[in-house]
């Protein structure tokens, strides 16, 4: 299912104090696609994602999931937040965290159980359902967050700088994990990150935002082959070229392309 962002603006505050974070932005994330959204801090990339999730209202414009306008968190769409310690519910076991995500779906007990087991297995946490988030490392907790997003079998998954808080090693593991489950669950992904390597490595397409006010600076297609590999892909010349192009767009959007 496509996610359509149609001339969306967002500002905070009112009257003279109003501050525009995002201006007249349009973007379509096509079904099954993996789109990275990058940009300098303050460019409104997280705001854009939260609006796509139905958690923030655009000041003007419209967001649609398929043909339906998004007015609140829509069914078939799930979000992985940046800060797992504040998005997972620490008072619930891992299993409880996942079943809570299913309360809206009205599934039978048995169906719920098998969905939870499947999701846990997909993120490599089979058998860890009785643990509590606080008993786990950061990487494991973010896996739980991903499993919780997958358990509803969404068509669209939005990820908001999901790996910002984990170490480099874990980060690489999680990146590959996301690429794998994306296929397993046939899910469309919009992925906000401030890490340029990551945006290139993961995506089919990169949307670069510029700041003050936030707007789309460029929309690049990633023509790297799949499946991707942390070592091989990053050695590819096209990776290096894309990487420096994105870097230039993010850091110095006003200088012309070198090649």
């Amino acid at each position, binding site marked *: 299912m496509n996610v359509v962002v149609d001339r969306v603006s967002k500002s*905070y505050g009112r009257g003279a104090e109003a501050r525009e974070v995002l201006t007249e932005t349009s973007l379509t994330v096509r079904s099954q696609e993996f789109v990275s959204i990058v940009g300098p801090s303050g460019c409104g990339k*997280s*705001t854009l994602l*939260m609006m796509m999730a139905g958690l*923030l209202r655009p000041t003007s414009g419209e967001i649609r999931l398929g043909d339906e306008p998004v007015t609140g968190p829509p069914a078939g769409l799930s979000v992985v937040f940046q800060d797992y310690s504040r998005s997972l519910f620490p008072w619930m076991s891992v299993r409880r965290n996942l079943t809570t995500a299913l309360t809206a779906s009205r599934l039978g007990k048995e169906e719920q159980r098998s969905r939870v087991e499947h999701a846990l297995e997909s993120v490599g946490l089979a058998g860890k359902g009785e643990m509590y988030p606080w008993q786990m490392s950061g990487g494991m907790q973010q896996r739980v967050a991903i499993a919780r997003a997958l358990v509803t079998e969404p068509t669209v998954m939005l990820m*908001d700088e999901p790996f910002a808080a984990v170490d480099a090693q874990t980060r690489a593991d999680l990146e590959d994990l996301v690429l794998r489950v994306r296929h397993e669950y046939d899910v469309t992904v919009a992925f906000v990150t401030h890490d340029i390597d990551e945006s290139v490595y993961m995506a089919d397409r990169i949307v670069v935002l510029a700041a003050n006010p936030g707007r789309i600076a460029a929309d690049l297609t990633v023509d790297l082959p799949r499946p991707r590999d942390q070592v091989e892909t990053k050695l590819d010349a096209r990776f290096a070229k894309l990487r420096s192009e994105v870097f230039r767009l993010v850091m110095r959007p006003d200088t012309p392309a070198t090649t």
Partner: protein
Amino acid sequence: MQTDHAAVRGPDRADWGGRAGPVALGVTGVVSLLLLWQLLGSLDVVPRSSLPGPWSVLRALPTILGDQDFLAGAADSAAATAITVVVGSLVAVAVGLVASSFAFLQRPTMVVVNTFRSVPATALIPIGVLIFGLGMEMKVSIALYAVVWPILINTIYGVATTEPMRRDVARSLRWGWWRQQALVTLPSALPSILTGVRVAVGIALVVVISTELLGARYGVGTVLVQYTQASRPEVVYAGVLLLGTAGALLFSALVRAERRLVRWVHHD
């Protein structure tokens, strides 16, 4: 996103009551309660002799406000409360800092605290009268007994939750005990201590008035007992009304002062 968080998160704690806010809403709340009170009277749930209607109580306000005994008593009760809170805070914070900065004292102190705080202060009034008589000393000592525990617990709690890294910084700077207490431990524990003090002010007020109802020589409570004995409940409730209002205002003032004092906490 960051700014968005701040906007949602910033003002929360205690905000539900702290701000004077739209006064109209507050007035609506109070009025709706007065109506309920009136209704309670009209339905004869409680006889007038025990709970007079709101109007007769409001009419009795000038009587009690014009009563020199009441005003003097109020001053006396307020003084007792103030002394209790100040002295209690100083003692409890000092004891709390010492008790929690030496590992061998920490748990034993909590055992003592938990043992003694379980005995309700107001039950000790007769003992207080035995030892201290009917004056200010008795009121203050009983109220102190009630007030010390919450402040002490909050101090120990606050010290225990001090970020260990800050203490390491102090240690690496080779600060002495006093300096470490003054510059690291106390500021870290301050929010928790202030919460304890706020709770203590409420407890002190209630306990002081209880000692007056059950024995003491002067004070608001003593005057209320006299009006009770004279079978003038509307005056008694006018007094209660004033007490509750004073308490509520005090609470709001404390919340505001507290927020100002520990403003830095939110920027942690």
